[in-house]
């Protein structure tokens, strides 16, 4: 079984986002970048499946600018076997990413494609479902548990009401929730070894996919600030304020 895992480079989840004054976007210069957190869970799950003997190869793929390669390298350091970097400059929307990934799937023929359920930059939550649609494959989104069977997966999904379990035949797409597993850290020897693993580079323009944005970003602005609150000295004061000032209880 072959598993393709898609990863995305985003602003690190600990960074306090700053909006550019001209309204054109957020500040990314000299800002720490990392792998999108649930993509780490996707890699981890693939590695665990390979360790259990049920998968033979893990390919990490990313779509993005030159430096996006770092996320593939990190995936290689925790257990992916080889990488693919599809180079594209500027903004690329989930629809175009999903079309690019379709091309890669057609070339590599994986049995499973894993990725995070949502990227923490644009918060779109689209790519996995879109890829499943293009391939006409089943989709198991927001996975918090995956059981690999012979020709199918049993996936527990985190839904608003609680947990839902579905069975999907392979090949299938799974988008991963943060609770799926605990991603491991790469050891130093593995980081060194990863430097020798191959990363194939492909230009998005060579894949024949239209990557022009369909959505115009007219303005990026800071959200309205909350008025500064107060500290209360005691529980009695808190309850009085809620009752008589805020009038919410």
């Amino acid at each position, binding site marked *: 079984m072959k598993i393709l895992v898609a990863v995305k480079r985003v602003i690190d989840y600990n960074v306090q986002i700053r909006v550019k004054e001209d309204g054109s976007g957020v500040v990314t210069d000299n800002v720490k970048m990392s792998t999108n957190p649930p993509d780490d869970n996707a890699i981890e799950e693939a590695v665990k499946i390979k360790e259990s003997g049920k998968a033979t190869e893990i390919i990490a793929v990313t779509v993005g600018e030159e430096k996006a390669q770092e996320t593939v390298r990190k995936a290689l350091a925790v257990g992916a076997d080889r990488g693919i970097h599809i180079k594209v400059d500027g903004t690329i929307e989930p629809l175009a990413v999903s079309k690019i990934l379709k091309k890669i799937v057609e070339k590599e023929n994986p049995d499973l494609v894993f990725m995070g359920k949502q990227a923490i930059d644009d918060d779109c939550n689209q790519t996995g479902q879109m890829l499943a649609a293009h391939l006409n494959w089943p989709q198991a989104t927001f996975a918090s548990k995956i059981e690999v069977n012979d020709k199918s997966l049993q996936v527990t999904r985190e839904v608003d009401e609680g947990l*839902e379990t579905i069975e999907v035949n392979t090949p299938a797409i799974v988008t991963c929730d943060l609770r799926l597993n605990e991603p491991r850290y790469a050891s130093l020897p593995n980081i060194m070894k990863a430097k020798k693993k191959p990363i194939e580079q492909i230009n998005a323009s060579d894949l024949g996919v239209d990557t022009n944005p369909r*959505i115009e970003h007219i303005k990026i602005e800071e959200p309205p600030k909350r008025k500064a*609150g107060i500290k209360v000295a005691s529980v009695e004061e808190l309850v009085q304020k809620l009752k008589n000032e805020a009038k919410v209880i």
Partner: protein
Amino acid sequence: MSVLLIAEHNNKDVKPFTLNAITAASQIDQDLHVMLIGSKADDVAKSLSEVPLVKKVLHIDHEIYENYIAENYTAAILKHADKYSHIICSANTFGKNLMPRVAALLDISQVSDIIKVISPDTFLRPIYAGNAFATVKSNDEKKCITIRPTSFEAAETTGGSADIEKIDAADQSENTKFINREEIKSDRPELGTARIVISGGRGLQSGENFKLITDVADKLNAAIGASRAAVDAGYITNEHQVGQTGKVVVPDLYIAVGISGAIQHLAGMKESKVIVAINKDGEAPIFSVADYGLEADLFEALPQFLEELNKLNTIQK
């Protein structure tokens, strides 16, 4: 052209977020049709037809739709999508799972999780966990939109009398099978729509200690929330999680107890009307969004809070 909203339901009742999405959809175009895909869901069709903002209900009734499977829903929607300028649903786990599949097959770049309709092609949506707001214009001819339900009022549910039109089912996907759903039944208000939410974090230290939260929730008729840390630690189940990757809540009163206030948690609650933070660490980031902060040990403060509430003559429900 009309707009098409996909209803979420359980074959008995309309899910509340569909009513918020109806309000948003009607701001895009008043000629709003609602598609109901279900099995023996005539009661749902009837209640949707009574929503005054709804002009027509398209009802697809077939046993293959007894459980919600995105693959099957998508096929049904695509069969009837061509007459519509916009296809819309709520941005909860239902709509997040469904809409991109529809959008991809229509070759549309979806606009996710909008919080405001500026015009039929321009919308406001939060990005970076709500740390920036983007005004975006969709240049696709047809649009696929998901709506952040808590940013729109719920539509009125009585007084309307829309036609109910029965339409055809589509083929069933052979590759996805519903196994089960563990729904936690509760008499409390739903987290997404509750007037008051009280949430616990890692500071609670154990699942048993969440009783301190539930006692106050009972008194205030509040829903119970949690930070991701509390869910990950196993103190409480996942459907209580508030935050960037959990639920977004906008109650009149949000009480955060033992929650430090990571960016990802704030993303799910900072639009609440009044925020209370109880935390023993005076430097915790949660205080920066709190209207009323109480620097105290929650194990002392919560029982006192309940005691003070008990002294009140009346409590709004």
